[in-house]
C-alpha cells in the first residue's frame, strides 16, 4: 500500500488556502449538502463512517456528536482541540497551515449537526503560522456568508473564533483545554462518571462538542461521499476506518507527514519516509511520546489500526511516529521522555506531579552512571503508582513509555546500572545531553 491522500490531497497547492481555490476542488459542497439534511441524518452519516477521534484516544466520533442535547435550551458550542503538543506529532500543524478551509467547513458541519451557536479553535501558542492561515480562512468565510449570520440563507447563525494558548502541553487534554479557554490555569477537571460529559456541561457549563483538528477535517469527506464510502477505507482492519495522518520523524531520511489507509503495515510507513538513517532500525515509538516503545521486529509485523497495534503492545495514539536507529541509547531516550513529562505535568495531582519528578531523578542518576541496584524495581513501582491515579491522562502517558522501555529493553538499563555507562555507542551528539 502507498500513501492514500484524502485530507492532504491538495496540501501542496497554495490556492487551496483561498476560498476560491478551495471551492474549485469541491470545497463547501459538503456543507451545502449537510445544511439541507436533517441534523440526525448528518450524525447518522458520521456513525456509518466509523470515524474515531484522531487526537489519540480513538473514541467513536458520532457518540460525541449524538450526545449534544437535541432539545436546545441554551447556547451550544463546537470546540476544536488544536493544541497539538505530543512530541513527535505535527500533523494538525500542517493541516491548519495548508488546508484551513477543511477545518472551517468541518466545524461548520459539526455546528449544524449539533445546532451550535459558536465555535472556538484552541490553537497552541507556538503555532502562529497555523493561526494566521485560519484567520485568513475564517475572514474569507465570513465575507462569503459561510460563517456569521444567516449561513447559506438558512437563518442559522454560527460564529467561529480563534483562541490561542500560551505554552502548556497539559492544555491538549480536553478538560484542561476548556479551563484554559475560560481563562484559568490549564488544569484538568473531574471527569465522567464523576462529573457530566462535556457534551452536557462543557464550556461555561453548556453543551460542548470537542474534537481534534484531523477529526473535523474528515467531516466534509464523510458528508460529500457518504459514511459508507468512508467506511470502505481501512476495511481490512477490525474497527479502524478511513485514513490517518502519521508524522514520521527521528532517524529517517525523509521525515514528514504521511496519510495512509488503516491496515497499512508499519514498515511501509518507514519506507515512505525513506528508510532508517545512520544505521539499522532499533526501535520505534509509533504514536507519539506517550505510547509504548516497540522493537524493530515488532515494526516488521505491526499493522496500523487501533486494535491491531495492541498486538505489538502499543497504540496508534496521535500518530507521531519516531524511528530510532541502532546507535540510540534507550536509557537516554527514555530519560528525555521523562524530562518532558516532568516539565509538563501541571501539578494538580500528586501522583503525576511527584511521580514524574522521581522517575526523572532516578533515570538521571542511571544516565550519569550512578544507577543503584534496585533502581529498575523502583522505577516499575513508581510507574504503577502513577498509572490511572491522576485526573487526566498525562500521568498515564508519563508512566507508559518508561514501563514499556523497561519491559522491552531491560538489558540496556541493567547494563547501564552495572557498568555505569551505556551499552550503545551513541553518536557524540546524543551523548552530549546535559
Amino acid at each position, binding site marked *: 500500500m502507498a500513501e492514500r491522500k484524502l485530507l492532504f490531497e491538495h496540501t501542496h497547492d497554495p490556492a487551496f488556502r483561498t476560498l476560491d481555490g478551495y471551492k474549485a476542488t469541491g470545497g463547501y459542497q459538503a456543507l451545502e449538502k449537510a445544511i439541507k439534511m436533517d441534523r440526525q441524518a448528518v450524525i447518522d452519516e458520521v456513525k456509518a463512517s466509523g470515524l474515531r477521534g484522531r487526537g489519540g484516544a480513538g473514541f467513536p466520533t458520532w457518540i460525541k456528536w449524538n450526545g449534544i442535547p437535541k432539545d436546545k435550551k441554551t447556547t451550544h458550542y463546537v470546540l476544536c482541540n488544536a493544541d497539538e503538543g*505530543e512530541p513527535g506529532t505535527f500533523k494538525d500543524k500542517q493541516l491548519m497551515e495548508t488546508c484551513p478551509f477543511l477545518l472551517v467547513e468541518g466545524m461548520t458541519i459539526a455546528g449544524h449537526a449539533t445546532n451550535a451557536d459558536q465555535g472556538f479553535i484552541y490553537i497552541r501558542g507556538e503555532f502562529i503560522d497555523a493561526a494566521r492561515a485560519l484567520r485568513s480562512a475564517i475572514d474569507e468565510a465570513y465575507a462569503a456568508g459561510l460563517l456569521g449570520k444567516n449561513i447559506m440563507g438558512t437563518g442559522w447563525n454560527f460564529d467561529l473564533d480563534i483562541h490561542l494558548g500560551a505554552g502548556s502541553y497539559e492544555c491538549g487534554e480536553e478538560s484542561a483545554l476548556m479551563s484554559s479557554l475560560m481563562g484559568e490555569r490549564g488544569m484538568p477537571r473531574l471527569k465522567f462518571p464523576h462529573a457530566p460529559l462535556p457534551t452536557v456541561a462543557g464550556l461555561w457549563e453548556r453543551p460542548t462538542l470537542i474534537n481534534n483538528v484531523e477529526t473535523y477535517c474528515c467531516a466534509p469527506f464523510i458528508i460529500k461521499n457518504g459514511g459508507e464510502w468512508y467506511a470502505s477505507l481501512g476495511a481490512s482492519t477490525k474497527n479502524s476506518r478511513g485514513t490517518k495522518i502519521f508524522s514520521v520523524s527521528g532517524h529517517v531520511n525523509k521525515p514528514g507527514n504521511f496519510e495512509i489507509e488503516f491496515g497499512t503495515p508499519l514498515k511501509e510507513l518507514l519506507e515512505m519516509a525513506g528508510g532508517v538513517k545512520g544505521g539499522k532500525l532499533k526501535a520505534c515509538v509509533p504514536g507519539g511520546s506517550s505510547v509504548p516503545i516497540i522493537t524493530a521486529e515488532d515494526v516488521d509485523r505491526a499493522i496500523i489500526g487501533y486494535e491491531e497495534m495492541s498486538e505489538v503492545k502499543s497504540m496508534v495514539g496521535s500518530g507521531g511516529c519516531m524511528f530510532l536507529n541502532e546507535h540510540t541509547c534507550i536509557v537516554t531516550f527514555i530519560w528525555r521522555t521523562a524530562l518532558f513529562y516532568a516539565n509538563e505535568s501541571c501539578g494538580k495531582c500528586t501522583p503525576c506531579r511527584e511521580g514524574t519528578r522521581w522517575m526523572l531523578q532516578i533515570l538521571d542518576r542511571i544516565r550519569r552512571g550512578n544507577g543503584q541496584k534496585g533502581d529498575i524495581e523502583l522505577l516499575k513501582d513508581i510507574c504503577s503508582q502513577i498509572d490511572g491515579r491522576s485526573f487526566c491522562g498525562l500521568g498515564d502517558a508519563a508512566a507508559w513509555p518508561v514501563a514499556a522501555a523497561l519491559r522491552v529493553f531491560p538489558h540496556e538499563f541493567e547494563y547501564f546500572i552495572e557498568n555505569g555507562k551505556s551499552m550503545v555507542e551513541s553518536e557524540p551528539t*546524543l551523548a552530549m545531553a546535559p
Partner: protein
Amino acid sequence: MSELTQIGSINERPRIPTRDEVELNFSDKAITELEALKTHYPELKACILPTLWIAQREYGGFLSGEAIAEVAYRLQRSYAEVEGVATFYSMYNTAHKPGKHKIELCTCLSCHLCGTYRLRDFLKEKLGIGHGETTADGLFTVEEVECLDACDRAPVIQVGDTYHGPVDEGYLSKLIDDLRANPESTVVKMADEMVKVHIRASER
C-alpha cells in the same frame, strides 16, 4: 503596587485593583482590541489569556507586576488570579524581562535524536548564556523549550513568530547576525501577531 499582592486578613479574598492603584498604559489600539475580544466570550474571565498577550506587547515583551495589575483592573479580576494564570504558561514572560530576541531551542525527543544539545552548547559559546538567561546587552534570551511540533524539521528553533529548521551552527551564526541588525523586537512582534489572529475582520 505591593499592596495588591498582600492579603489583609485571613477572611479577605484577593481583591480587584482599584483605579488609583494602577497606571493605565494600554494604547488606543489595545483598548479597541480588548473591547472586540470581550464580545467573543460570555464571561470577562475568558479574556485573560488574550489580554495578557496584549499586555505583553504593550509592555515591551515583559509582563511586569504593573502589566498584570492593568490586565486585572481592566478585566475586573484580582491581581492574584491574573498572576496565577500568567505564571502557569511558558510563553508569557513573567520571570524577568527577556532580551529583544528570544531564541527558543527545542530539545525534546526528535530534536534530541537529531543532535540539538550540540546547538545548545554552541549557543552558550557564541552568546555566553544558557537556558533562561539574557545577554548583558539585552539583545538575546536563550530558552530550551519542549516539543515545538515541527519534528520533520529537527533540530528546530523558534524566534518570535518564525520557525527555523533544520538548523546547524552555520545557520545559527548567520541568524544571530541578522537578528543583531534587526531593529524590531521579535518578542514584541510575536505578541502582536498573537493578538491579531484573535480579532475578526469586522472588528478591525
